[in-house]
């Protein structure tokens, strides 16, 4: 700041705030950015609607079974609800680079890394809201089938609280995985395709390969360790089965039992490793 400019002759010009750049400010800026676009709201709404609808359809279909328990259908909507948080995260991660906004952003915050850190916080905060809506929608989805069979739904019993919290955490984790992929790859289509293949396509493909080899499902415990099943367990959605199941449940036959904490660690690694790579790329490379 030159001495001349301080002594600007135009006294009428109101002085702008003279605060320094702060992380708090960068956080507020990133929140303003995310909430000023339409896509994040659509992604959050789609997450809740998809989760509620699929749960409703699934619970209704199962309600004809003699041993129907509505709580068994509680997480059946997660399959579709996964897409919304992934899209949300990818869009936050690639938004700067896919549009040229990065020039404004990183000229304003030349240290760069605070922006990425703020995006993590903001994406998680937005995803928490989306995840809570999705969980509420899932609960609403099983109620018609339950009342149709005259079954009272008790959400406090038999590990159901853990299922609800685990499902919400999984959806938030997915948003951060999406952000990491987007921030690393910087282009929306490759990031979105890559993360959807990892989360949705790969586990199904690997499971099919396993089924083809071992034939009809054998009772758990009797199945020997199987590399394909182990791989499935270490994908984000495979690990998530430990988070979205009641305590002691989840997982794939022939694969290690990660438990909820192990599963959370696997999910965190899927977000953290690409995020660190994105941070290194952001810090060291030119932004053209």
């Amino acid at each position, binding site marked *: *700041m*030159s*001495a*001349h*400019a*301080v*002594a*600007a*002759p*135009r006294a009428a*010009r*109101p*002085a*702008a*705030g*003279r*605060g*320094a*750049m*702060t992380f708090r*400010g*960068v956080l*507020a*800026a*990133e929140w*303003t*950015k995310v909430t*000023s*676009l*339409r*896509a994040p709201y659509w992604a959050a709404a789609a997450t809740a609607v998809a989760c509620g609808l699929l749960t409703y359809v699934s619970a209704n279909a199962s309600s004809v079974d003699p041993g129907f328990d509505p709580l068994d259908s509680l997480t059946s909507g997660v399959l579709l609800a996964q897409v919304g948080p992934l899209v949300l995260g990818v869009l936050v991660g690639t*938004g700067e680079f896919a*549009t*040229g*906004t*990065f*020039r*404004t952003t*990183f*000229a*304003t*915050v*030349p*240290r760069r890394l605070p922006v990425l850190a703020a995006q993590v916080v903001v994406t998680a905060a937005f995803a928490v809201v989306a995840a809570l809506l999705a969980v509420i929608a899932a609960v609403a989805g099983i109620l018609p089938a339950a009342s149709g069979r005259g079954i009272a739904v008790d959400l406090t019993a038999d590990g159901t609280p853990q299922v609800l919290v685990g499902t919400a955490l999984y959806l938030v984790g997915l948003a951060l995985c999406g952000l990491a992929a987007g921030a690393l790859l910087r282009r929306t289509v490759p990031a979105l395709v890559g993360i959807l293949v990892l989360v949705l396509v790969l586990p199904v493909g690997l499971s099919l390969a396993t089924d083809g080899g071992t034939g009809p499902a054998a009772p758990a415990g009797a199945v020997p360790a199987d590399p394909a099943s182990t791989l499935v367990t270490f994908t984000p959605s495979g690990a998530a089965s430990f988070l979205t199941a009641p305590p002691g449940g989840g997982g794939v036959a022939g694969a290690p039992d990660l438990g909820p904490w192990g599963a959370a660690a696997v999910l965190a690694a899927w977000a953290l490793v690409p995020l660190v790579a994105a941070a290194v790329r952001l810090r060291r490379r*030119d*932004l*053209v």
Partner: protein
Amino acid sequence: MIEVEALVKRYGSTTAVDGLTFTARPGTVTGFLGPDGAGKSTTMRMIVGLERPTAGTATVDGRRYAELDAPLHSVGVMLDARSVHPGRTAFRHLLAQARTHGIPRSRVDEVIAMTGLEPVAHRRAGTYSLGMGQRLGIAGALLGDPGTLILDEPVNGLDPDGVLWVRRLVRDLAAEGRTVLLSSHLMHELALCADRVVIIGRGRLLADAPVHEIVERSGGTLEEAYLQLTAGAVQYRGRATTSPTTTTAGDAR
């Protein structure tokens, strides 16, 4: 004050900026000229820390840009009108920028009024014309009331009224003691608003002098002086399509 010293930028075997040294001083509008591909935008990106120099230094008020505590208050930057998310309104774009430095909302409204964006401030930027995008870029550069301004082709796409406004704006900013570095291809415009010009070609300095001096030396207009100085440094040159000699379709390819 912008000081560029022995600045070099190489991309693989290509040298975009080749040992460039110049200074843009307070109270002065410094015009930054050169043919397409001469390295103007690369130099500007290095000054604001988006790219790292291969060698040499670029400082603002004696400090590297990345080390500034409050970049928005030190330097106003407009590099490209397409530096905005098309789904965001001008107001929200500027508000996000302002919030990083704790600049109040009232200042956002102020720069919107200064740049004449009021009627469209709450429309999504994707719907803007090039000229409106330029105004938004200038609004962002003014946001922090900075002592130094770096404007890459600010009048590009503006209507005649906008061109006149930018001319007055940069003159006023310099009169207030600020440093203004402005690139443009419009020689007539620069002759009217710049005090000094820095001309580069193929990444090297070709001239660095007051406008009147350059014009007197060549004996013509600033445009003629520029064309003389850069004659050997033009990398992209178009050709007339209606050549009087026989032109076949094969030549056109």
